[in-house]
């Protein structure tokens, strides 16, 4: 009985919180320097579809809950799953990540430190970052076989971000280590984006240029410990567009084009995010 009413309690809490317009990043892989507002919760569903050469077409999704714990600290939890044509649909794991912003003012370059722990299996196809020698070959292995591979991983990122003349420019350096005794793997992501209009119009509108943000991101692997390289690694160039549909909803889309032989030829990413503000007192109340 208690469990049965839990979804209604959660829904009631969500309705009690007010919707807030997110400062939503348009990127799928690159992180910018902006943190979740304190006490706000963002729910997001991100989707990626691809078709590796010599493998089956797949779609993968991640469900994300992001919370602004403090102005300098944002925490996120992800659940991931995948579906591969002619094979199976499976839950592939979870991850928890924390971002810390040591300097709170706005500077020409704003650093953010990122720490993540992931527990999943080798069938995870969400491609939320590219490190080491990650490539399309990884997604050609049969799902049943890939699921036997354990992916307990820690990941560190140095996020640098700047806002200049309406543009956001962000750079990420990534280091990831599978705790099964594998070497550190490295990767990068860079992104630049800008709203179509810098000033807002006085009227309420859905399709006006101020609600759209466009840009591009570039991401890929840099080899591993003892062998930093771009040889045999995958790299992607991906235009991004985001649309703030309403006061709290943001839609995002990004076609990604593989730049090397190891890369997927094409990936399509789609995302929807909904943000609530004012969840902080409720969450803190539950903790007591």
């Amino acid at each position, binding site marked *: 009985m208690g469990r049965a009413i839990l979804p209604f309690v959660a829904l009631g809490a969500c309705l009690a919180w007010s919707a807030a*317009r997110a400062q939503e990043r348009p990127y799928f892989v690159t992180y910018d320097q902006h943190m979740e507002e304190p006490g706000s919760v963002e729910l997001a569903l991100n989707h990626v579809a691809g078709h590796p050469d010599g493998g089956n077409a797949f779609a993968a999704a991640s469900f994300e809950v992001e919370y602004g714990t403090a102005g300098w600290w944002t925490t996120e939890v992800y659940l991931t799953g995948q579906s591969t044509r002619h094979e199976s649909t499976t839950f592939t794991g979870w991850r928890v990540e924390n971002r810390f912003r040591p300097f709170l003012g706005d500077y020409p370059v704003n650093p953010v430190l990122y720490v993540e722990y992931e527990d999943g299996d080798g069938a995870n196809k969400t491609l939320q970052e590219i490190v080491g020698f990650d490539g399309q070959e990884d997604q050609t292995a049969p799902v049943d076989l890939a699921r036997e591979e354990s992916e307990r991983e820690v990941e560190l990122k140095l996020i640098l971000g700047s*806002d200049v003349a*309406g543009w956001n420019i962000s750079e990420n350096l990534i280091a990831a280590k599978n705790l099964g005794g594998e070497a550190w793997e490295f990767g990068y992501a860079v992104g630049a984006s800008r709203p179509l209009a810098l*000033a807002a119009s006085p009227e309420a509108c859905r399709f006006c240029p101020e609600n759209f943000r466009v840009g591009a991101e570039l991401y890929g692997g840099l080899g591993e410990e003892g062998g930093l390289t771009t040889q045999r690694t995958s790299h992607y160039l991906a235009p991004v567009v985001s649309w703030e549909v309403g006061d709290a909803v943001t839609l995002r889309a990004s076609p990604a084009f593989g730049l090397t032989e190891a890369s997927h030829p094409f990936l399509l990413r789609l995302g929807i995010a909904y943000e609530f503000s004012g969840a902080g007192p409720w969450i803190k109340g539950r903790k007591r």
Partner: protein
Amino acid sequence: VRAAVAALAIGVVAAGAAASARERANPYAGNITAAAAGRKLFLRHCASCHGEGAEGTRRAPALVSAGMRRSRAGELERFLRNGGMSRGMPSWSALPEQRRWQIVTYLESLQVP
């Protein structure tokens, strides 16, 4: 001694930057259209904490006050950009500068003595 000189130089530069930010004029000062756009932005980004009429709530203070009337436009824009985390105010540097000025224009329009 070198460290002290460097710290002093950084302090002077930072103070200079803050002073020049304070002196910056609002490019939309008195512009009714910008104030209307600022109201729309305020309702979207700020009202959930400061109240729909900027009257303040349990979460954030009123923005119609003697203190606000004394503040310069440049100071307000700078505060929006940097935030004040010790007081729970997030940074709005993700908003383009033009939109921060539009919010400042709206806030200035509320400050009737």
